[in-house]
């Protein structure tokens, strides 16, 4: 018994290296950031006073930060919902394992292995106002009047930006739904067919409830990923025109690099963290309540 418990202690050492790296390079800085957010530190001097929640009131009364929060929420809700609609529709359409469908799956998934950096430059080129692909194409087919300054028009820029993650991630969401569809036992589909249900009833009462684990996964992953989005907006619009596409990750970046005000930046970062954690946990709670098991 003594020998056993002694060798058991080795197990604690197993966790140690990963835990040390993770705590030191991720969790410790996070708490440090929380502390900065309650000081008046500008990032360079050695002067640092504790100011409580003052920075939070400051950033929350800044109309630019409020716009940034609003855009972050619009982006997250729209991208999460639409990427799931697209991904689920694609999965249902290519579900049958034929050679043709395999080719479609590969094509749909391809953008997901590319860097957001690459994708952003490709779409910046697509959207460019004068020499851009979309506008050139529109005028080539005589629809030049439909041409837009896709990224330069404040009313249009956020929509143009949000299209890009949908384009890139639709196929990725599809893959998860396909895995979920394969896991549905055949007998449920057969039972429904014998009962003579139509397509909509079948989807509503058989396929969708059994797809809930995949749906939960996709929703939570898309929500977290959308809150964290950076490269697309940083490269395509850098938050502009004006503040029309500014999101929280960009606000933090600007407070770090361009006009270093570490205390304000840390407060915005803390708000972002609270949003991500709160939203993904609530979402997880609601969605897992809807999961069923027919066995």
């Amino acid at each position: 018994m003594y020998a056993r418990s002694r060798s058991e202690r080795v197990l604690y050492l197993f966790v140690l290296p990963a835990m040390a790296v993770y705590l030191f390079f991720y969790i410790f800085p996070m708490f440090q950031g929380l502390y900065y957010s309650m000081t008046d530190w500008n990032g360079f001097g050695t002067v640092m006073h504790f100011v409580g929640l003052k920075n939070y009131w400051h950033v929350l009364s800044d109309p630019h930060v409020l716009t940034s929060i609003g855009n972050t929420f619009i982006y997250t809700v729209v991208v999460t919902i639409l990427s799931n609609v697209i991904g689920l529709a694609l999965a249902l359409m290519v579900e049958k394992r034929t050679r043709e469908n395999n080719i479609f799956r590969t094509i749909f998934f391809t953008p997901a292995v590319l860097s957001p950096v690459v994708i952003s430059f490709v779409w910046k080129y697509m959207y460019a106002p004068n020499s851009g692909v979309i506008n050139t194409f529109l005028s080539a087919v005589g629809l030049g009047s439909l041409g837009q300054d896709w990224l330069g028009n404040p009313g249009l820029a956020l929509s143009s930006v949000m299209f890009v993650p949908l384009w890139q991630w639709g196929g990725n969401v599809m893959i998860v739904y396909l895995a979920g569809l394969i896991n549905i036992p055949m007998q449920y589909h057969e039972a429904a067919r014998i009962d003579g249900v139509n397509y909509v009833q079948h989807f509503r009462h058989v396929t969708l409830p059994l797809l809930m684990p995949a749906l939960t996964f996709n929703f939570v992953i898309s929500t977290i990923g959308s809150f964290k989005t950076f490269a697309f907006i940083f490269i395509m619009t850098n938050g502009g025109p004006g503040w029309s596409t500014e999101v929280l990750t960009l606000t933090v970046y600007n407070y770090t690099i361009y006009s270093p005000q570490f205390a304000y930046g840390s407060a915005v970062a803390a708000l972002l963290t609270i949003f991500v954690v709160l939203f993904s946990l609530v979402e997880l709670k609601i969605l897992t309540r809807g999961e069923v098991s027919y066995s």
Partner: protein
Amino acid sequence: MASAIQVSRPNMRRSGIFLRSVLLIYALVILFPLLIVILPTFQSVQQSSQGILSFPKQLNFSNYANAWEQSHFLTAFRNSLIITGSTLILNVVLGALASFPIGIRGHNRLFKSSFYVFIVGLMLPFQAVMIPLYHLMGRVLKLTNTLPGPIFVYLAMTLPLSIFFFTQFIRTIPPEIEEASVLDGCSYFRMLWQIYFPLLRPITATIVIENMIFLWNDFLVPLLLIDVDRLKPIMLTVYVFFGNYSNEWNLAFSVLVLSALPFLLLFLVLQKQFIEGLSAGAVKG
């Protein structure tokens, strides 16, 4: 795999045509932007001024040659290989090591709470740690403008996902395996690498693919930590190159294509493993 829903025959043919057209249109929407950026890379500078949709008269590889040279492509590629490769290896070794006790001793309070501590990292945005990390790496540890700098940060960022996947997988392995090896007098260390690790192969594939896509393609961490050219990984190089050559689309897009090509080829060769690996992770998770 039979189709889930059967429809009567004439209906099926009509809906089949409709379905196929929708899929074809969507495939075009995906492929068109990816293919159109190849056009300017073969155009000469004079030709590109005539408009982007003019087809190159002959295949002109000089843009690629110039882009290769001026972006120091090989250096960037090497840096990316070092950063991605080292992170992946350390990630799998440290991740498996940490997940083993958490997986087989799930009832232990300390292991249980370490699992939750790691899971928090799945939600934490990089921006939450960016400012303190910038300070820590730059002024305390002097790890900015080194390759180990981003490797450590990436390791901390990718461990939560690996530990989540590894732990879930280890929990499905029957405890009899452990009991049998304890009776044989096997140490925990040998038990992990010789008995458990081979069983973890499918989930290891998922972890490697998932992390590889992120590591190879990220530019935010190096953007923060590296500003000397000879240490920049590939995506940061592309970003900087586009800034410097924003008026020369031909060159800029050549670098873009070059940067995307290796990973795209890897994906096309291993697409079955990629897609199966990623779906395995999603279902197990």
